[in-house]
């Protein structure tokens, strides 16, 4: 469950005031808004990468407002995937579990399992350079899910994909969501994507958040 309770964020001239949002456990939430409306800022605040001025962030019933990003135990897929260029696909999927203390064989087994689900098993030994946009996004998604988080934040995961890749990525994300049963906050500016993916859809405009 993701619950934002009256959070306010100030970044230079940009402010968001009293934003509240709730996505029940295992549900798929989509946050829509135009460019510069603060969607990414909200996601980064949930992940602990941006400090909030006031309010509370509750994840799975725990107030994580002052937790460090790693202690929130959520998966994060930033825009364009942002893969680690020196690691192979397998190494970066297994990176999170290894950092969290999994044994290497278990981490690599998990990497293979996710690669199989996301149809990227043929890329496991490759480095990110040369991967297509869709492949990079799938690797980033696998990396975010590898430690089995209960919550996943996807920041415009489909924006750089063409129509065919987007449809495929949507169905893969949906499949994984059903398989692994995590709660999702998916950011997009596409109404059709929101309609297709979301159980709960929110729209942010002029610093205010509304349920759609």
């Amino acid at each position, binding site marked *: 469950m993701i619950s934002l309770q009256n959070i306010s964020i100030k970044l230079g001239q940009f402010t968001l005031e009293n934003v509240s949002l709730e996505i029940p456990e295992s549900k798929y939430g989509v946050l829509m808004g135009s460019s510069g409306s603060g969607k990414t800022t909200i996601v*980064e605040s949930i*992940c*602990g*990468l941006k400090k909030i001025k006031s309010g509370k962030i509750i994840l799975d019933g725990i107030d994580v407002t002052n937790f*460090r*990003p*790693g202690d*929130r*135990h*959520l*998966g*994060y897929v*930033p825009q364009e995937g*942002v893969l*680690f*260029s*020196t*690691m192979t696909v397998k190494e970066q999927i297994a*990176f*999170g579990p290894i*950092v*969290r203390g999994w044994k290497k064989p278990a981490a690599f087994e998990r990497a293979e399992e996710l690669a199989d689900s996301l149809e990227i098993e043929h890329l496991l030994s490759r480095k990110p350079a040369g991967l297509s946009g869709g492949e990079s996004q799938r690797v980033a998604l696998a*990396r*975010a899910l590898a*430690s089995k988080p209960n919550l996943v934040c996807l920041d415009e995961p489909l924006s750089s994909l063409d129509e065919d890749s987007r449809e495929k990525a949507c169905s893969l994300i949906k499949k994984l969501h059903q398989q692994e049963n995590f709660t999702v906050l998916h950011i997009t500016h596409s109404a059709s994507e929101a309609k297709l993916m979301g159980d709960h859809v929110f729209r942010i405009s002029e610093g205010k958040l509304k349920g759609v």
Partner: protein
Amino acid sequence: MNNKKVSSDFPFYAAMWTAGGMYFALIIALLYADASYTSLDNIKEALNDKSIRASIWLTMQTCWITAVLSIIVAVPTGYILTRFKFPLKRFFDSIIDIPIVLPPLVIGLSLLILFNQVILFDKSIEEWCATILKFLRGILPNSPVFDLPTGITYKVPAIILAQFTVSCAFAIRTMRNTFESLDPRQENVALTLGCNKSKAFWKVVLPQASFGIMTAGILAWARALGEFGPILVFAGATRGKTEVLATTVFLEISIGNLEGAVAVSFLMVSAALIVLIMVRLLGSKKRIW
């Protein structure tokens, strides 16, 4: 309608190539002048000279130590200047560039004054260093590995310090460019995956900065090789003691041995050329230049 024909690109290309070509020709002419003034025999003779061999050895030692020290300082400093916001950041950034723009002799003079005229608790920094080195000589085993000097000024440590003061500024600039070229969101992703800042730095940032680190080290090494002014003022030019290749050229000229000076210069040009080509190759591999 009377449409004017697009004029030729030739004058544009000609102007560009002429300006660049003239400077390239000047450098090649300098190298040719050096090569024509020396011969293989002169170079062999220089290499057989005991003091020049000692100078080559000391140059290699001090340049490598300087390069390593520069990297140790440049990596964290470059990272701080790229990733952190703090008061007076622009002021600190400008201060770090001072060794790049200051005349080399002024750096040597400043080091000399700092070590010998600045008094801390009734002693100059030079006297404090001599006391510490004396204490260390007393507790360390008597072996060539721990053959510590008796002080800093006019001794080998002064060469390293003079080289380091200038080289490190170049290394910091290189590391800053390297870290600026890395997407900070990678560290953010690493933090969400369970890393703390330190682990994200060692596991994610540093491996990606490896080419930049090598480039910074090589540039620091090359800069140390060419350093002369601060070494002359702070370490002196005592034959066989504080003589590095740059001072060898000066000493050979001062005794009228131009052939010897050019032969040593040629050795330095060769070393610098190898190093600079390595930098370009690494740079092109990482595409940060």
